[in-house]
Each structure stands twice: as structure tokens, then as C-alpha cells.
């Protein structure tokens, strides 16, 4: 049995989690078994049943009041209980901060192998071989996963998720909870509301020091809004507090994998590229024709961001 953890955001299954379901269903098919999804937190049955259209035949829903807020330790206990209950041999999680943490704790509880950053479906013809991203996207490693239980953290775009016509039954899952998982007290939260998340986004518009200051961001935000894109930035930009830290992309920030990444006034230092090299298509806009970003980009415009960005925004609006 393949068990897939689906992450909820305000009661909806995240897009990367639907990819994880499609991935899990494909593994189930290749190994002649079925796929079950596990959701933790508040969501209605109709939303959870969506996992069925991506190939799961059953959805376990753990909805105890204590689990309403994200808690990696408690979620790991629920995940481990579900693995035992369902005799799962393969566990799929989308790659995210929450999933890495809960996957790790569940792996230690179960004595399971854990491989994070998986980029392709496994080869099950001889053993269980998966390919994962290493050296921050500069290379891949194929590893033979040996544990009786195998936990895989899959990267965005590891599989193309296509909605089908299948359906899944939703069952309540109520394992015993451990007090020890709730020792931390959340004393506050700062969260930008209604912002598109960088790890989920299909399009990202990102700015560097070439934007020249925090007050100059409007043209970039306008393009992002016209494209329905999330916004990111380079490290110096967040270090200087021009943009919030959670927008920092790169080696020491968030690693993203959108379909389209538009870099505005970013030089293309290797540490920045490390966070964006999994993007499908990269556009670089820079006034310096020698900027290293052009070597990593698919499309380039040599020009002044303050001239180019408003014109692109207009072109996007005109094309609608």
C-alpha cells in the first residue's frame, strides 16, 4: 500500500499535494497495489474526495481539534499510526518544511528509509531506485532505497498531475495523540495574508539589487499581479529589508520550481541560481549584457527594469 500525505491550506488540498497523490497513485500502479491519502486538519469531505480524481482510492482524515494547527511532531505521530494501520510500504510527502520535519520524525519512529528531494518516479524493475536532486540542483543522485518502509519527499514537478475520473471514500482516522507532541507553545504569528506561496507558485517575478530600493517595487508587483505570480527576491534585498525574509530565494533561502521565473535586476550569482535552477523557463532582465543570469536563462532582455517592467505588464494585460 502507498500512503500519501496531503497538506491542507485553509481547508483546501495544496496543488503540490495533488501532485504527490498522482505520484503515489503511479507508484501504486507500478507495484500492483492501491493508494490511500492522509489529510490532517480541517477540510470538508468534498474537498478531500478530490484526492480520488488524482488516483487515491481512500482518504483518511484526522481531524481532532488538537490537530487544527500545523504541528510537525503531532502530525508525524498520526502519519506513523496510519502507516502501521494500513501496512503502508511506501509513503509519499510533497517537499515542504512541514513535510520534511514530519517525514523525518515518522521515519525515526518506524525505522524507515527517508529520501528527500525526489525528482522522478521510482524504477521498481530491480530494487526501488529513486533519483533525487543534490548539491542544490547542480546534480542528481540515484539511490536504491532499502528500508521495509520507504518515505519519499517529492519535489514540485516530479510528475505531471492530471485530473482523472476516479473517486475515493473518506474515512475518519482517530489515532491516540501524545501529549509530548504538544509541549511547544505558539505565542504569535506574522503572516502575509492572501499571498501566493513561492513553493506552490507556477510563476514567480523576482527582484534584485538592480531594483535600487524598497520604494521601487511597484512595477514588479504590477507585473506579478497581471501574471497571477508570486514575488521573490535575492538575498541582499531581504538582508537590506527591502523585502520580507520569506521572499528570499537561493542557496540559503527558498528553493523554487515554477514554470516561469522572471528575474529583474538580479546578477545571477551561483548561490541565487541554486534556488531557481529547477524552474522550467527562466527570463532575465538586466541592464548589463554580461550579467551571469543570461547564461542560465531561456529568454533575456538587456535593458532597464524601470522601462521594461511596465511595458511587459501592459503587454500581458493587452493579451488578455
Amino acid at each position, binding site marked *: 500500500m502507498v500512503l500519501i500525505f496531503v497538506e491542507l491550506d485553509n481547508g483546501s488540498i495544496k496543488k503540490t499535494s495533488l501532485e504527490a497523490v498522482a505520484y503515489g497513485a503511479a507508484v501504486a500502479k507500478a507495484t500492483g497495489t492501491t493508494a490511500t491519502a492522509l489529510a490532517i486538519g480541517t477540510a470538508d469531505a468534498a474537498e478531500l474526495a478530490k484526492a480520488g480524481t488524482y488516483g487515491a482510492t481512500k482518504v483518511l482524515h484526522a481531524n481532532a481539534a488538537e490537530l487544527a494547527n500545523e504541528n510537525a511532531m503531532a502530525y508525524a505521530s498520526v502519519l506513523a499510526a496510519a502507516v502501521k494501520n494500513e501496512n503502508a510500504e511506501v509513503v509519499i510527502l510533497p517537499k515542504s*518544511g512541514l513535510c520534511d520535519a514530519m517525514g523525518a520524525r515518522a521515519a525515526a519512529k518506524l525505522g524507515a528509509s527517508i529520501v528527500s528531494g525526489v525528482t522522478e518516479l521510482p524504477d521498481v524493475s530491480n530494487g526501488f531506485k529513486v533519483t533525487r536532486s543534490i548539491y542544490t540542483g547542480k546534480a542528481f543522485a*540515484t539511490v536504491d532505497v532499502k528500508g521495509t518502509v520507504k518515505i519519499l519527499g517529492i519535489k514540485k514537478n516530479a510528475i505531471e498531475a492530471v485530473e482523472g475520473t476516479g473517486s475515493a471514500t473518506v474515512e475518519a482516522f482517530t489515532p491516540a495523540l501524545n501529549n509530548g507532541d504538544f509541549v511547544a507553545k505558539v505565542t*504569535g504569528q506574522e503572516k502575509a495574508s492572501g499571498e501566493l506561496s513561492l513553493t506552490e507558485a507556477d510563476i514567480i517575478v523576482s527582484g534584485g539589487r538592480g531594483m535600487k530600493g524598497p520604494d521601487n517595487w511597484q512595477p514588479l508587483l504590477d507585473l506579478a499581479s497581471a501574471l497571477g505570480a508570486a514575488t521573490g527576491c535575492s538575498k541582499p534585498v531581504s538582508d537590506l529589508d527591502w523585502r520580507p525574509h*520569506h521572499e528570499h530565494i537561493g542557496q540559503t533561502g527558498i528553493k523554487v520550481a515554477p514554470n516561469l521565473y522572471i528575474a529583474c535586476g538580479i546578477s545571477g550569482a551561483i548561490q541565487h541560481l541554486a534556488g531557481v535552477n529547477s524552474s522550467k523557463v527562466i527570463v532575465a532582465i538586466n541592464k548589463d549584457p554580461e550579467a551571469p543570469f543570461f547564461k542560465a536563462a531561456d529568454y533575456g532582455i538587456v535593458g532597464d527594469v524601470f522601462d521594461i517592467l511596465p511595458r511587459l505588464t501592459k503587454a500581458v494585460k493587452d493579451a488578455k
Partner: protein
Amino acid sequence: MKILVCITNVPDTTAKISFTDNNTKLNKAGVQYIIGPYDDYALARAVELKEQQGGSITVLNVGEAESDPQIRKALAIGADDAVRVNAEPTDSYFTATQIAAIAKEGGYDLILMGRESIDFNSGVVHGLVGEMLGIPSFSPVMKLDIEGATAKFAREIEGGKEFLEAPLPLVLGCQEPIAEWKIPNMRGIMTARTKPLKVVEPVAVGDMATLDQYTLPAPKGACKMIPADQAETLISLLKTEAKVL
């Protein structure tokens, strides 16, 4: 307060990655090694906490003798002693088992790690170690203060941060801006030479994920340049040619 800081010995962020031995070994020719940048943040915060509250810092690496220069650097930055588990780290579970074994013996109040290694980028060793020790783990932590037996810290979440309090002992995976990277001074470098570095043999762990081979990504095609006066054509190219709009 006893702090354990776990550091990786990894190729510099600018290193060109290539492989040898039928794509089963990293080609180390010309590669500079560094302390993992996230681990470096963890170490920097540990040094600050020790300056504030006293205590001791032990650095730990699971790796072969080639890690020693980075361990010495950590000692020069301010750790008091070091342990190296003499083994090639074969996977996250193996590495975590070694760290947990050392941590159990040492009885540390705080175990600081990086958010992730920059060689395998798993982001899982802190969770594994926390569970193996039966203590809480959190990552990525971007702010950390200790008040008595309580840690007050901020964790990055999607689109923002969350503030937490939890009792020690704890395992934390760190990232910026928890502290500024520290550069060793001359005195630090001199005293580091005589600080104790204990080398111990690994505990046995069954095979969990063994390397088959490494591969490099397909080379990127040439960048299509669009003249600035025709910038608008980019949008139609993204639609019709790249098909991403």
C-alpha cells in the same frame, strides 16, 4: 548550558560539481570545502549564547579526516571541543543515528544544526535526531533566545514566521538571520590547535539508501535575447513558444 552544534563539511557554494569513478564519486579536484552555511549560522548563534550565559559548545561532524580543517575552524570560531564520528555519511538515517548516539552520552541542553546540508539538501537530520532522542525538533529557526530552561524562538513558515516557546532540551535547524556568520580571529586560530578533537568509530546501522550513481543535469540551451525595444514580444513567446502562460 551545554550546546552541541552539528556541522557538515561540504563543497563551497561556488564549486563546480562533477563526478568520477563511473559517476559514483564526487570529483574533488579543485573543490574547496567549507562548513555548511546553515551550520555556520547555528554555530554563530551558539557562540553568542555562550557569551551571554556561559556554558560550553561541542561541535560534531560525521565524516572522514578530510573534515578536520572545518572542525578546527569551528573551534577557532568559538567551540570548546569537538567530536568526529569517523565514517563516510552514507545517508540521512545513518548520520542521524551517529549524532543521536553522541548526543545521548553528552546530555546537551541544546542541539543546533543547519536547516539543511548543502550537499544532499534533505532537511531531515534534525527531525530524525529529535525523534531518536525523544525530544522536540523545529526547523527552520531564524531567531533564538534562551531564558532559563525555555527556548523562545521564531520559525519560518510559508509567507511569514511563527513564534514559539518550548522547554529544553531541543533540536533546532537554523537559518539566517539567527546570527551573523563569524570569522575566526588570530587568537581563536591559535587556541583551536590545542582544543580537543575526539575521533570515535560509528555505531552500526543497516543499509537504508545506497548510492547507485550520480548524474548531471542536461546542459542548458542558449538564451534567446530579445531586443529591449521589442520587449513586448517576450509575452507572446512565453505563450506560444515556451507555453508557460
